Structures are given as structure tokens and as C-alpha cells.
């Protein structure tokens, strides 16, 4: 079983001391990438919930210490861990008992490593300030202050409740100054700053606090490395620079040195009673500022935000330099100990390594990109994920009009194909949408459709593109563009012929077109082009889905609620399969068998299986189907079903489903009983596909709604056991709600047939008429299989059974 597609961008990455490695928080683990190649070297595994903070222990300047590879991590599972990431080896675990959202260790920065080690041995103290969520103190009805800033001593293996410095509604992230003197949090329109008690801090040393005010919500702020300067960015795009903060309130503690003991009321730009000498505002960003970072010498300030432009300000003069068109909102900017290297992290799961000071992108550590946000009219219609079954590569539509090729088997981005020649500007209105991507069975041809949305009814354009793969470089080159393939109607589905170079596109305008590749044998491959071979329509009704049979002799096209079967070569209507209750949205032949799977979901969801040889309905379920796939060689097929909410929130089942909203059901040919069932998270917008690299091994890939994925063997016991282990291991984390990449949970035990029948016979008396899944099936009884075979009861029986087994 392979899991992947984790987000690289949940928390800021960190460079190692020699700048050759980049540590990235990826869900429950920390991945270590090589900065020279951009490939993953190793990972630190041990946390049982997403890692939120990563602190690389800085080394002194001597070269011998540059190879020190220690880091601290903090996680939502409530532990702080100390690692040697060259190993990788877990050195120490400290249990803080509360989920940690952010952590800083000031003494690491203020003092060289050797001294710290010595002192820690002596005094047994290493002070950390953490931002935790404390749910225990929250009472009903009161204003909830769940986020706490606390002081912990990491020298002890088990931390008692530390001193609370501040309470906020939500856990905030703590920012520390590079010198280790100050740390602070942002809270709405304010910045709270504490200074760190010098001298390692006895337990009772009190940190002093000051506050800076602003009229807008502050998004991010940063401390100057050497001077008392704070830069903050707000939601409107302004960058504020406070100089000389805290001269009064945070006067250097021990030395008692009064820098300026006067009260200047005409401090330029400073609000109210705030303790700062001056405040200046720079306004270039048009949208919120998320990234703020001073350069290591303090001469420059790096800012960035939603518009995807990295701006470098010269601090003294306010002059700017830009790295434009990154194409995605910036989240973090990190400079490395190597002055020629820095990294910028984007919201589309990409980490760009920049060559400084020219700010060229050297290379990119590419995670799986998040799904594009589609206009409402295309929701549910777009098919934005396609699979190359032989090589395990997924083609995913992305926000910036590209198709990303992602290798599911080794969790790595391969390349990106610019489908539409435009630059994506995050935050702009969406005017061009890549609505569908399809790959041929051998992965050599890709087809995409894009829609240019009209302005005031002028100039909408649908275009269909065919791409051929370049065998060596694993990318695709454009072969043919078809403008307005179905006049002005949108393309609803694209399907490829299993063996020949033939494709079909269906449209809402009431026709389908068969496209063939007319590559001449004499001509080179690049000269091949796709031309329309035939056009068909059925009663001028909108066509919504299409599929070729396993051997390619029959083409099935869904026309509202009937299925038409065609001979794709001669373009002859062979027959029409009777009506379902609602319009069909997905069609799929079950492998080589004569069964045809059709799914429809509006207004009444239905999964129906038709026998194409005697043109009759075999069976059907009232399930909302998100995706269908079938194996090439056998007759098995799998569907991804959404579990109805009413069913899920039922009290007796709540502890089974938790946050899982979907299920993958594996069927075998005509048999209406699923061979196996897995429940999954974030099934809405997800997709599944069989992967069959070599004949012996059949695997099932599931990509969920936020592009996390899992690849597993649907038939083997091994995967079952492993998934069961994962299920146990992950059980604790689910209350936290944002369980990063976990998507697949335990497989139900395989029931033998006898037991199943028992379950069914047991199930029937339970059924009472007020249950919602009962009414789903009220319709023409002719269309339905025997009542006892209906899915919901069957499901329910299974679920009841399972709780019994578990308990």
C-alpha cells in the first residue's frame, strides 16, 4: 500500500546548517530533501499527528559544527521530539499533553550550541514557548479562549502545565526574532511582544510584554535580526515598519540601560500609546501579505502575498525588486545559511529553491497540486483527474491551466504541461477553465478540454486538444487543437478506444463526435493529427457520458436517461438500453464482460448495472457515485460512493464513520454483492482507477477531493492487515479534525457467503419505513432488483455486523 500526496506547505520548511538539506513537514512525518537535486533523502517518522513546528538547531560559525544535524519538532499529538536527522534517529520525546500549534526555543538562537549543551547539563533547563490548544478549560457558553501561549522547560521528560502568558480564541503561531531576544504573536489588529528573560531564565523570571496596534487585521510579522525593528503585513496589503519598539517597556533587562527614557508623543505614525519611535507604511501589494522576512544581514525585507509576487525592499530606501508570476499565493520565505540559496513556499504545494540574489528559480520540489477551483456550473461535471494505468501516473488539472503528471508509485511530480497558454494570477476572477483531462489506455495520448468563459455573453470558446507523449521525456506535446468541437456547446466527456487511436467526445449540445488519428505510416509521429471521423446524435438530446467496451467494438453513449450503443467504425446505432430514472453522468463497461455500469446522481442518485447482451437491467443501488473504474482483464469493477449524510450521522454509526464520507465498493461482474468495501475520507471530488502495471498485480488507486491518494492491492490480505494497522494507529488523531493525508481506513473483514446471507436475513426485519434510504428506492419496481438486495439494507446489515465484531 502506498500513500502520498501529502501537503508540503502546512508549516514553514527549514534548511539544515550546511544548506544542503531542506526539512519539510509532511503530515505526520518530516521529509528531508536534498537541495541540490530536489529529491527526497529520508524522513523522520514517529509523530502520530501532523507536525506543526520544525526547528533546526543552529550551529556556531565554525565549520566543524556545520555538520550538526539536530532538530526539534512539535506536533498536534502533544509531543515535542528531538531528532538527529542525518541518521535519522529519535533522540528524545517530551510529552506536553496538549496539541502544540507553534513552538519557539529562544536560547537556541541567542547562544551557541556548545554552551547550551553545557548549561543544559548544568541547570537542566531549556526553555521553550509554545502555542497550545487547551480544550479542557473551555466551558459551555463562555467566550472560548482556547489558544494559550505557555512556557515549558524542555529539559524534563514530562512537562507540567507551564505558565500561561496569553490566552486567545484560536491558537496563534509564535514568531521569534533571529537574535532570540524577543518573541511575539499577532492577535487580530495587535502584535503582542515579549522579551526573553536573559540568563537562561530561571523559572520565575517574568517576561515583559508590550503591544503594537494597527487598524487592520495583521497577517504576518517579522523581527529585524539586529535592530529593534518589526515589519508587519496586513490583510489589505500594507507593510508596516515599526522602528525602535519597546525602548520604554522592554528596556534591556539586565543592563538597565535606558536608551531613551523620554515620552515622545509626536512619534511619526505610531498609534496611541504604543512604544515605538516611528512607524512607516509601504503599500505595494494589492492583496493580503502572508510572507515577511528580513534578510540575514537586515538590509532587505522580503514580502509576498496572495498575488504571487516576491518583493524585495531595500530597508533604508524603500526601493523594490520583484520576482513576478510565481503563479500561486506565497506562504513562506526561508533563507538558508548559504547566502546564494533561499526557498519560497507556494500554496499550490510547490517549494521553489531560489538562487540569490538574482532570484532565479533553481529547481522546484513539487508536491501534488491541489484541485482547481471551478466555477459552480462545472462542479461535478469536470473530470480533472486521469490515470495512466500501466505506469501509475496520474494527470491532474491544476489551477494554473496546467496538467500535472504525478507518479503515484513513488510520490513525485514528473512534469507539467501548459494546456492553455496563459499566466495564472491567483486571486483574479476565473475566466479560463480546464474542464477535463483523459488519457488513453496505453498512456500515449492525452486529451484536454478548456472553456473560456464569456464576458457579457461575448466570446466564450470551448476547445478540445489532443496531446501525444514524447516517449523519452515523459511529457506531452500538442498534436491537434479543435476549436468549438460541438459548436458552442460544452464537452461533457471524453473517452479513448482501448486499442486503437480513436476517441469520442460527447456534448451537452446533443451530439457526439468520434475522432481518429490519421498518422500516415510514412510520416513521422509528430505529423499525426486528429480528425473527426463520425458524428452521431440521438433525438437531439444532450449526451452526458461515453465509454468503449473492453474490446473496442461497442461504444456506449449516455443520452439523458437512456444508453445508446453504437458501432464506432461504421457509426451505426446498434441498440438503445432502457431508461434509468435520472440522467446518467458516468458510464463504464465492466472489463471484458457484457455488463455496463451507469451512474447518475441528480436529482435521485442511482448506480445501475446493465447487461448489454440481453439489453436488460441486472441490478441497481440508490447510491451517489463519484467515480467508476473497471479492470481491463477481469470483469471486476469498483465504484466510489458517497455515503448519505443522514446515514452517516446516525448515532449508532457515528463512531464507525467518524469523518469518513465515502466508500469504495469492489464488485465482480454481475454479482450485486460487493466483494469488499473500504470507507474513505473526503470522497467528494475524488476519483479511483485500477492500475495494472504487470499482469500479476492489480492495484487500485484512490485520489481524494484534496488530492491525497492511496494505492493498494484490492485482493491481497497483506494490504488489509496494513490498512488495519494504520486504522488503529490513526484512531486517536481524528478528533482534531484536519487529519492531513489520511484517507483510507480499515478494510472490513471479508465475510464469507454464509455470514452475508445471515446478515441479509437479519437485516430485513430491521427495516422500518421512516428510514430515509428506504424512500430513495420508491419508484417503478420493474427497474429494481428484489427488495432484499437493495443496497442500503445491505449496507446497514454490514455495518451492524461490523460494530458487533469490533466490540
Amino acid at each position, binding site marked *: 500500500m502506498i500513500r502520498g500526496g501529502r501537503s508540503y506547505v502546512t508549516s514553514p520548511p527549514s534548511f539544515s546548517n550546511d544548506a544542503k538539506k531542506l526539512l519539510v513537514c509532511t503530515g505526520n512525518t518530516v521529509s528531508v530533501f536534498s537541495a541540490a*537535486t*530536489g*529529491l527526497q533523502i529520508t524522513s523522520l517518522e514517529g509523530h502520530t499527528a501532523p507536525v506543526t513546528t520544525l526547528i533546526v538547531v543552529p550551529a556556531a560559525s565554525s565549520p566543524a559544527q556545520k555538520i550538526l544535524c539536530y532538530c526539534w519538532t512539535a506536533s498536534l499529538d502533544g509531543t515535542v521530539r528531538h531528532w538527529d536527522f542525518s541518521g535519522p534517529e529519535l533522540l528524545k520525546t517530551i510529552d506536553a499533553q496538549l496539541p502544540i500549534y507553534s513552538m519557539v526555543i529562544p536560547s537556541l538562537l541567542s547562544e551557541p550550541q556548545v554552551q547550551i549543551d553545557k548549561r543544559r547539563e548544568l541547570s537542566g533547563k531549556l526553555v521553550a514557548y509554545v502555542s497550545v490548544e487547551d480544550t479542557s478549560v473551555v466551558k459551555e457558553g463562555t467566550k472560548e479562549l482556547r489558544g494559550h501561549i505557555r512556557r515549558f522547560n524542555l529539559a524534563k521528560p514530562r512537562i507540567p502545565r507551564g505558565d500561561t502568558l496569553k490566552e486567545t480564541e484560536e491558537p496563534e503561531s509564535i514568531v521569534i526574532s533571529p537574535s532570540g531576544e524577543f518573541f511575539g504573536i499577532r492577535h487580530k489588529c495587535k502584535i503582542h511582544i515579549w522579551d526573553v528573560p536573559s540568563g537562561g531564565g530561571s523559572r520565575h523570571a517574568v517576561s515583559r510584554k508590550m503591544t503594537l496596534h494597527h487598524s487592520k487585521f495583521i497577517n504576518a510579522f517579522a523581527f529585524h535580526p539586529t535592530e529593534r525593528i518589526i515589519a508587519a503585513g496586513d490583510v489589505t496589503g500594507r507593510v508596516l515598519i515599526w522602528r525602535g519598539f519597546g525602548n520604554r517597556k522592554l528596556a534591556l533587562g539586565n543592563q538597565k540601560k535606558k536608551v531613551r527614557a523620554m515620552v515622545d508623543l509626536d512619534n511619526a505614525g505610531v498609534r496611541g500609546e504604543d512604544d515605538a519611535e516611528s512607524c512607516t507604511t509601504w503599500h505595494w501589494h494589492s492583496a493580503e501579505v502572508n510572507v515577511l522576512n528580513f534578510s540575514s544581514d537586515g538590509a532587505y525585507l522580503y514580502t509576498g502575498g496572495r498575488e504571487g509576487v516576491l518583493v524585495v525592499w531595500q530597508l533604508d530606501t524603500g526601493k523594490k525588486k520583484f*520576482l*513576478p*508570476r*510565481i*503563479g500561486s499565493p506565497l506562504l513562506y520565505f526561508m533563507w538558508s545559511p548559504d547566502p546564494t540559496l533561499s526557498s519560497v513556499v507556494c500554496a499550490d504545494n510547490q517549494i*521553489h529553491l531560489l538562487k540569490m540574489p538574482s532570484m532565479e*528559480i*533553481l*529547481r*522546484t520540489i*513539487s508536491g501534488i497540486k491541489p484541485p482547481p477551483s471551478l466555477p459552480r456550473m462545472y462542479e461535478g461535471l469536470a473530470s480533472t483527474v486521469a490515470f495512466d494505468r500501466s505506469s501509475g501516473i496520474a494527470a491532474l488539472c491544476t489551477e494554473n491551466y496546467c496538467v500535472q503528471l504525478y507518479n503515484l508509485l513513488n510520490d*513525485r511530480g*514528473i*512534469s*507539467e504541461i*501548459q494546456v492553455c*497558454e*496563459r*499566466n495564472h494570477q491567483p486571486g483574479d*476572477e476565473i*475566466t*479560463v477553465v480546464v474542464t477535463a483531462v483523459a488519457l488513453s489506455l496505453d498512456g500515449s495520448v492525452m486529451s484536454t478540454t478548456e472553456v*473560456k468563459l*464569456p*464576458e*457579457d*455573453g*461575448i*466570446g466564450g*470558446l470551448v476547445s478540445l486538444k489532443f496531446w501525444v507523449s514524447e516517449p*523519452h*521525456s*515523459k*511529457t506531452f506535446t500538442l498534436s491537434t*487543437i479543435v*476549436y*468549438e468541437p460541438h459548436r*458552442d456547446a460544452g464537452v461533457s466527456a471524453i473517452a479513448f478506444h482501448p486499442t486503437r487511436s480513436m476517441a469520442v467526445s460527447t456534448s451537452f449540445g446533443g451530439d457526439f463526435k468520434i475522432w481518429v488519428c*490519421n498518422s500516415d505510416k510514412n*510520416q513521422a509521429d509528430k*505529423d499525426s*493529427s486528429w*480528425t473527426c471521423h463520425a458524428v452521431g446524435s440521438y433525438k437531439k438530446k444532450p449526451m452526458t457520458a461515453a465509454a468503449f467496451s473492453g474490446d473496442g467494438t461497442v461504444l456506449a453513449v449516455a443520452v439523458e436517461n437512456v444508453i445508446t450503443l453504437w458501432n464506432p467504425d461504421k457509426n451505426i446505432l446498434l441498440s438503445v438500453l432502457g431508461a434509468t430514472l435520472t440522467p446518467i453522468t458516468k458510464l463504464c463497461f465492466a472489463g471484458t464482460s457484457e455488463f455496463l455500469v451507469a451512474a447518475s446522481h441528480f436529482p435521485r442518485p442511482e448506480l445501475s448495472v446493465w447487461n448489454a447482451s440481453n439489453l436488460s437491467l441486472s441490478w441497481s443501488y440508490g447510491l451517489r457515485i463519484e467515480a467508476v473504474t473497471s479492470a481491463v482483464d477481469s470483469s471486476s469493477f469498483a465504484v466510489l460512493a458517497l455515503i448519505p449524510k443522514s446515514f452517516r450521522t446516525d448515532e449508532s454509526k457515528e463512531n464507525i464513520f467518524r469523518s469518513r464520507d465515502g466508500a469504495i465498493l469492489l464488485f465482480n461482474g454481475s454479482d450485486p454483492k460487493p466483494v469488499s468495501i473500504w470507507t474513505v475520507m473526503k470522497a467528494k471530488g475524488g476519483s479511483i482507477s485500477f492500475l495494472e502495471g504487470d499482469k500479476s498485480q492489480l492495484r487500485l488507486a484512490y485520489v481524494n477531493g484534496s488530492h491525497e491518494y492511496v494505492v493498494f492491492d484490492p485482493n491481497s490480505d497483506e494490504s488489509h492487515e496494513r490498512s488495519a494497522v494504520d486504522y488503529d494507529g490513526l484512531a486517536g488523531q481524528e478528533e482534531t479534525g484536519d487529519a492531513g493525508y489520511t484517507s483510507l481506513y480499515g478494510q472490513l473483514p471479508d465475510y464469507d457467503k454464509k455470514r452475508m446471507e445471515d446478515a441479509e436475513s437479519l437485516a430485513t426485519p430491521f427495516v422500518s419505513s421512516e428510514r430515509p434510504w428506504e424512500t430513495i428506492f420508491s419508484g417503478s419496481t420493474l427497474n429494481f432488483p428484489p427488495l432484499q438486495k437493495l443496497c442500503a439494507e445491505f449496507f446497514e446489515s454490514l455495518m451492524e455486523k461490523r460494530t458487533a465484531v469490533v466490540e
Partner: protein
Amino acid sequence: MEEELRVRLNEHQVSKVFPVKPKSTAKPVSESETPESRYWSSFKPHSVPNLVSSVSALAFSPVHPHSLAVAHSASVSLFSSLSLSSSRRFSFRDVVSSVCFRSDGALFAACDLSCTVQVFDIKERMALRTLRSHTAPVRFVKYPFQDKLHLLSGGDDGVVKYWDVAGSTVVSDLLGHKDYVRCGDCSPVSDSMFITGSYDHTVKVWDARVDKSKCIAEINHGLPVEDVVYLPSGGMIATAGGNSVKVWDLIGGGKMVCSMESHNKTVTSLCVGRMDSAETRLVSVALDGYMKVFDYGRAKVTYSMRFPAPLMSLCLSPDGSTRMIGASNGMVFAGKKKKKLSRDAGEKKSLSLWSVRGQVDETRRRALRPTYFRYFQRGQSEKPSQEDYLVKEKKGLKLTRHDKLLKKFRHKEALVSVLEEKKPANVVAVMEELVARRKLMKCVSNMEGSELGMLLGFLQRYCTMQRYSGFLMGLTKKVLETRAEDIKGKNEFKGLLRNLKREVNQEIRIQQSLLEIQGVIAPLMRIAGRS
């Protein structure tokens, strides 16, 4: 794989600039530019003064400079092949039907409808010999391939005669054709073998060495034969009759190899053409005005060209540089290739001249001093030698004016600048880009008087053009709606609006008539589909 992947990842660049590109238009499925078609279309048309009536025959002299004999009405004109101008003219008593040069190019024979065959010296006006024996109009006359003493002729009396020119006597009468003999050709490998074609649908093969005046082989074309020609190997012949051209294998017993039926009217003349690559093609002309080039090896028509008149005769010069086609209305379509070989030779000469100069320059260059201007340019035009490592300069993307303006978000100026360029595809591309930026209507509402006039002029010209109409019709409507006040009063827009209205009305009429036609066709299609 790992290495490769790394390289790919390193290449990744985020910032890109996409210039606005017009939509690519459909290309023909078959390649329009093949080397074959390039060769045949490279004959540059030359104007030749119109002749009086139908050009019945054309012949090139086999020796350089390949002068040309053109038979038209009752005369034969000699043309020089270089200037394609008439140099000498020979008169006949009746319409000349055929003309042929001797192998050394010094004499030519011509026959006319007054039953005579005449032999001329190209330098003298009077006939050297007049051969009289035919009892009906003579249709063709031919010199054997290398033989300078004999002639072959045939006519409407159905008799093929083999002449001794010096004595003006008939060596043998070759009997066998049952209808008019129209054409004939002599074998390129043997002086005593020839073929004749007749209206009795047959082509007969003769051998002068066989005494009995009987044909040695016979081929049935199936239609009245208009022209026959030996292919260069001498073992195959091509026949033209009716709409078809057929290729036969004589050695293999007269079997048909292939046939070409792409002409729509009677094929009148055949000729063997030699291409640059020493491949040979069969060229045919017909009354439908088409010249077709037939690759008989692959049985495929490789080139076809249309002329504005029924074509009667065709001839290609032996060096392949000139193509002459005679039409029934007296026009001669002459085509000449540019002379490549001679120019190459000229270049070589000039090159050698340069190299001498180059050495001189070398000695001079050594003495360059900072006082010379050229001192500061030294080495700038140096070519890299093979072992030098080349550092390539990154080529910047060339941006047009409207792209630069779009890059700076000066949308209206970009639209105006592209409207000035008068390239409709670019204008529509810029407009589509503006739609994608949601700025088109803003641009329209910001336009000033003259700019608005330019936009209206563009819309008037192109809004009914099929390729752009889907986009421009909607825009036209919107422009007229939003700028109604500005357009209404102005005199300068009046003409534009009137034209626009007319265009739209015309388009509506066209659409209606198309609908009517569709109404007629649809039932027919339905019936055809049912059967």
C-alpha cells in the same frame, strides 16, 4: 531515468510570457508541399504571344539549345528556347497536324491535312523533301530515335508508312489498322521498333526489320487512342484514349500495368518528364484543362495543375528546364525553370575570387593600428572554430507592440494598436485575451471618436466572416448598444453603419437560403440513410 528527471526538474521555470497568438487555422490533411509538387510548380510562367488557332503539336529539338517547333493552323513556328520568341515561320497548304525533329536537330519533318509530309532544314524556308503517298490527311510523323534517313507517318487512310527520306520513297506500307491512325512513337532503344495508335482502339507494335508488314504485337486500349508514348526503358508504353491513360508492359506480353483515370475529358497528349532526381514521370494534358503528373511506379497522381483552356498538346524540353502546353484557343502556356546550375558555377567563381582577396586582407589586417576605425571592430565577425566551446546567448522572446502593451495592462492602447495593424486574426486574438481579462467592454467604453471609427470599420468588414462571426457578431451588438449616443449623431459613422447594416442583411439572406437548401436535402438524406 533519475538523471533525466533531475534535468527536467532543473529546467522548470515558473515565470513565462505568452504572446497573444491568433487561432491556428486548419491545415490540409495531406501535405501540400511535397518535393514533387515543389518541382512541378517551380516552372515560372512565361508569356508567349497568342497564336491564331489551336496548337496541334509541339516539339523540342533534341540538341542544345533545344529550339522549339510549334504547329498551329497552316504553319510551323520555330521558337528559341532561351527567350521563347518566334524566330522563323514555315507555311503549309493546310492545317499542320504533327511535327518532329531529327536526332541531330538540323532537320524537322511536319505533316498536314493535305496528305503530304514535308522535311525542312531549320535554317531554310523551302522544304527539302515533300513525301506524297498518303491518300488521306496525315496525322503524325516521327523520326526514329537515332536513324537520320527514315521517317514514320500515319494518317486517316489507316496506313502506316515507313519512308526513305533521301529518295522520297515508301520503304514499306504497314497495314492492319481498321480506322484512322492518330499517333505513333518510335522506340528509344531500337531504331526499327515503333508503335502506332488508332481510333480502332488498338495500339500496334511494328518492326521495320520484319518484312511481312504485319504488326508483331497488339494492345487494345478500349477507347479511341489519342496519343501513345514509349517510356524511357523501351519495354513499356503509355497510351491515352478517352479519359484514361494506361501503362502497358510490352515485354511482358502486353499486360496493363496501371491506369490513371483522373481526367474528366479526353486526354489529348502525353509526354515523359524527367525530374531532378532522374526519376521519370508521365505528364498528360486533356481537354478539361488539367495537366496531371502521374507516377507510374507508384500508380499515383502526384501533381495536378489547371489551365484556363482545353489543352491540345504538351512538350517538355529534354533538359527539363522548359514546359510548353498548347491550348485549343491558340494560347501557349510556357513555363521555365530558373537556371540553378549555371548560377552555382558563377558563385564558385566569385568565391575563388574572394579567397584571393581574403589573403590580401590578411596581410593588411596585421598592420591594423588603433588609429584605424577598423581596429575597433577587429574580431567581431569571427566565426567559431570547431573545438571552441559555444556559450549561447539566451534568445529573448520577440514581443509585438500589442503584446508589450498588454503586458503593461494598457488594454485600450493594445486594442487600438492591433486595429491599426490590419491583421484580423491578431485583432480577434487580442480581443479574446481582453475577454479573458474581463476588460473588453471597458476598452470599448473608453474609446474615443476616431478609435471607435476604426473599431466599427473593422467590425463592419469582418463581422460576417465565418471564422470570426461567432465572436464579432456579439461584440458588434454590444458596441452599438453601449456607444449608441456617441455613434448616433456623427456623420463619419453614417457610412460605416449603413455598410454594416447591408452586410448583416446579406448574411441573413444567405442563412435563409442555406436553410432552404437544407430543407430540400434533409429528406433526401433521410431516405438515403434508410436504404
